[in-house]
């Protein structure tokens, strides 16, 4: 029992990112609304960013912006990487949203089942 609590307390970042990831995956697969799929996709991506940020943490470290004082910084590299990855995520979201808009104009719905029915009708 104590072991379990210990694991939860020390590895809680992994638990959080895993549960967020599962949530996102569920949104992507389980929802039929395309916008909700995109939201799930974003949650999925951001859970991984959280994982990266959490592995960069140093005990008592602060955000890696230079200051004059003598301090411990967290590892700056994952922050830089995640900045790039966030830009990528945002562009993916933009592409996805524009696709959804065009799908809506074309099919008059953002519901996957209805769209597939309309496709079948053709």
């Amino acid at each position, binding site marked *: 029992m104590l072991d379990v609590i210990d694991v939860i307390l020390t590895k809680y970042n992994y638990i959080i990112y895993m549960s967020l990831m599962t949530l996102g995956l569920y949104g992507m697969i389980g929802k039929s609304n*395309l916008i909700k799929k995109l939201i799930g*996709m974003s949650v999925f*991506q951001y859970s991984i960013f959280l994982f990266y940020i959490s*592995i960069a943490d140093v005990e008592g470290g602060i955000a890696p912006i230079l200051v004059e004082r003598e301090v411990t910084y967290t590892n700056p590299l994952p922050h830089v990487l995640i900045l790039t990855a966030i830009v990528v995520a945002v*562009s993916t979201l933009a*592409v*996805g949203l524009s*696709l959804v808009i065009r799908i809506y104009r*074309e099919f008059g719905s953002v519901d996957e089942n209805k769209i597939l029915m309309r496709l079948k009708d*053709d």
Partner: protein
Amino acid sequence: MIEELSNHLPILLIVSGLIGAFLTPLIGLIRRELCSFWASFITLIQFSISIFLFYQAVQVGRISYWLGGWEPPWGIEYAIDILNGFVLVVVSTICLSVAIYGRKSLLKEVPGKEIQLYTLYILLCTGMLGIIITGDVFNLYVFLEISSLAAYALVAVGDRNSLVASFNYMIMGTVSACFILLGIGYLYLMTGTLNMADLSRLLPPLYDRPAILIGLALLIVGLSIKTALFPLHTWLPDAYTHSPSAISALLSGTFTKVGIYVLMRFIFSIFGLEYFLRNTDIFTFLGWVASAGIIFGAIMAIAQDDFKRMLAYSSISQIGYIALGISLANNFALAGSLLHIFGHSLMKTGLFMVAGAVIYSKGIKRVSQLEGMGNVMPFTMGAFLIGALSMIGIPPTIGFVSKYLILLGAVENGEWVFAAVILFSSLLTAAYFWRVFEKVYFGENKKEEKAGKEAPLSMLLPTIILAILSLVGGFLAPMFIRVFELWIGGVILGGV
């Protein structure tokens, strides 16, 4: 000056693409038609740089370029060895030929969107070349996402269905990119470095750690989605069927191959063969999945009536061959895989070009309507014949050599099931192409159309060149294999 510039060729490969992509809107403001020439020009530059880099890599050995002048473990490194350089040449060849081919084809299929289309096109090519030459795993992820984004957008410009296809592609692609990112994260967590050479140096002592295995599993799953390995292929048929023909030609010829390349890079260069010899299950699993994919793709291809959809399922089958070759991991099979990357790029791009040419001049999309095309479009169908024969594996084409090598590899490892799968699937391949031959050469053309309704020269020429290359490639295969052996020897000897 020239001397100095030639040291910077790896980065110029990428920068020329970047500048080219973002100058396309400016070019398009002057004249829309110039965009396609501009794209051809940029891809031509990239093609020549790639050839030169490959030549250098063969002659001199590994080329390394430090971005911003920072030393590798800290800065981003671009590295080219033989594997790299070879895939570089393959991809840039396809990019160039599709750029030439696409001018007329895209104009007809998606009129009035040249500016966006060619910006994305150059971006896609640049992203793929970037994936290939980079020596930094995170940089690889970024380039992968750049090219994937361009690919989603390019798939979406096709017909009505392509929007849904592109959406599904995007969802799958994002999942795969996230898995890759997560895998990279685990590797970084364990080793503290992102440089490929550094990783391969630091990984061996950590072989027993479970985190490494998790990272590898995530990477393999992610890359399998990008390469459309069998159970994770679901995005591919729709995306290839509904996108414009030139785009499906490009994607089929290059993007999946790049994914395979990344897989090879991770398996053989970064993790090293030794890791897989300790955990042989991974290769066994990969082999079974690949052979299931080979059979599945071929059977599904037989069932299709849509020409492009048939080719798409055929792609799934052929990607299985390459993966099978990787999983066998001996001299013959690896050489066969590499050769099949080259061969399949040529053949499949050529076949998609044929499909596009038929759509261009006749508007025909279905196999059952192809009756008598052999007389109407003799050159196009000649190219189709060569490509299809090569796909089946009839000597002396390149497809024969690569399949034969993979078969030899299977025999050498004593994997008789895989050998049987290869032989059996060749029969299936012959079956689905025979259907087309039958229609094209022996079918009755009801309208009694005469010859001379060929596609324009700018579409015909790349098609024929690719077909001839896949024919000639069979004769040149020994030369290629000698080059591959330089790399394979390093991998296998270095590993064991």
